[in-house]
């Protein structure tokens, strides 16, 4: 009898350890999913629990890509993002996510819309193998280009919807990217990213000034303002 009780006790302890292990594993999975941004869309959390807005991600020296795909009206389209004169905000949206619905509505009223830095707004959905062109056609804002391109989602490594990427046109550099629940949050996100970028640029100029001063080159130094040399036959 004592042996049976002992065996049961050991079994209970082992089961307890197993249950604790499974709970820890489950908690770890949930934590990782949260870090990856899963659950940002209230569709995934009935009741529309407010989730935090991730900080803008900077990809360092990452450059953007042109967006190529099909429009909801079945046009083959290429949007010049890299090398364009203006910057581009790419809004990666889907037809199904509840948060995206707010953005589709906002983009339908362009008179109330401000795009930071005067950038061009382009909406990118997944391709017709995933999204219905008819549904996207219903949602498409008349004032902004909408391109259906799963390739663009892969190239920009879009982790979830909605997701926004700001690409500097002339350099093709990705200034910042991230997610938000309202357009006001997006503009705040990009204003911050653009300000950070301007600070970085200003820092670079200050660093160059310091290095010139250390080399004895002050403002007004003649090496900074070389006289135009006249051509002479001796140059031949």
């Amino acid at each position: 009898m004592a042996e049976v009780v002992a065996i049961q006790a050991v079994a209970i302890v082992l089961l307890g350890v197993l249950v604790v292990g499974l709970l820890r594993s489950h908690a770890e999975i949930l934590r990782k999913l949260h870090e990856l941004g899963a659950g940002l869309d209230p569709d995934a959390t009935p009741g529309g629990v407010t989730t935090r807005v991730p900080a803008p991600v900077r990809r360092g020296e990452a450059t953007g890509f042109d967006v190529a795909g099909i429009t909801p009206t079945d046009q083959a389209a290429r949007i010049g993002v890299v090398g364009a004169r203006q910057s581009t905000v790419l809004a990666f949206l889907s037809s199904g996510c509840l948060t995206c619905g707010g953005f589709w509505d906002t983009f339908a009223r362009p008179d109330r819309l401000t795009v930071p830095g005067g950038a061009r707004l382009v909406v990118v959905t997944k391709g017709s193998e995933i999204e219905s062109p008819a549904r996207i056609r219903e949602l498409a804002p008349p004032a902004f280009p909408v391109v259906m391109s799963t390739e663009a989602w892969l190239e920009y490594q879009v982790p979830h919807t909605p997701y926004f990427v700001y690409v500097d046109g002339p350099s093709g550099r990705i200034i910042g990217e991230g997610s938000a629940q309202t357009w006001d949050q997006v503009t705040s996100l990009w204003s911050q990213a653009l300000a950070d970028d301007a600070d970085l640029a200003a820092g670079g100029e200050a660093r160059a000034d310091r290095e010139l001063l250390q080399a004895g080159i002050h403002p007004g130094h003649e090496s900074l303002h070389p006289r135009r040399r006249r051509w002479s036959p001796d140059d031949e």
Partner: protein
Amino acid sequence: MEKLTRSGLEIELPDGWDGRIYRREVDDDAVTRRALHAANFALPPNLGDYAVGAAERMGSGDVLVVLLEFDPDQAGAGLFANEGLPTSMGAGDFSPSAMPRAMPGRSAAQWFFSRGGRAFCLYVVLGSHGERAALLPLVSQVLKTLTID
């Protein structure tokens, strides 16, 4: 240079260029009639075939290329008697009065031709009539890559 391909039309677009290829809406849908827009500026959505809405937004350094396919019954005759894309395109071909509506400073030119039994119109708009000689090479660079099947 990035390729844009659709329905037998193909064009290579330099960095920063927008492009679209689509089927024109016609009464008789038994024959495919295609359209192509290419521009070195941001093309707005929902343009008409002649992309007038884009021409209205052009700056002085902008160029717009439009290729439209017409009724194949007209190919090889009259307006469409010339075969193939225009090989010589000069500043003298452009005129401010060739614009679909008055747009001060801008300039445009049209060429009609046939290719493989199909009738086409090439319509090019430049953002500045005064700078047309400087802008024309941008157009030629892109048109050299255009293929029509």
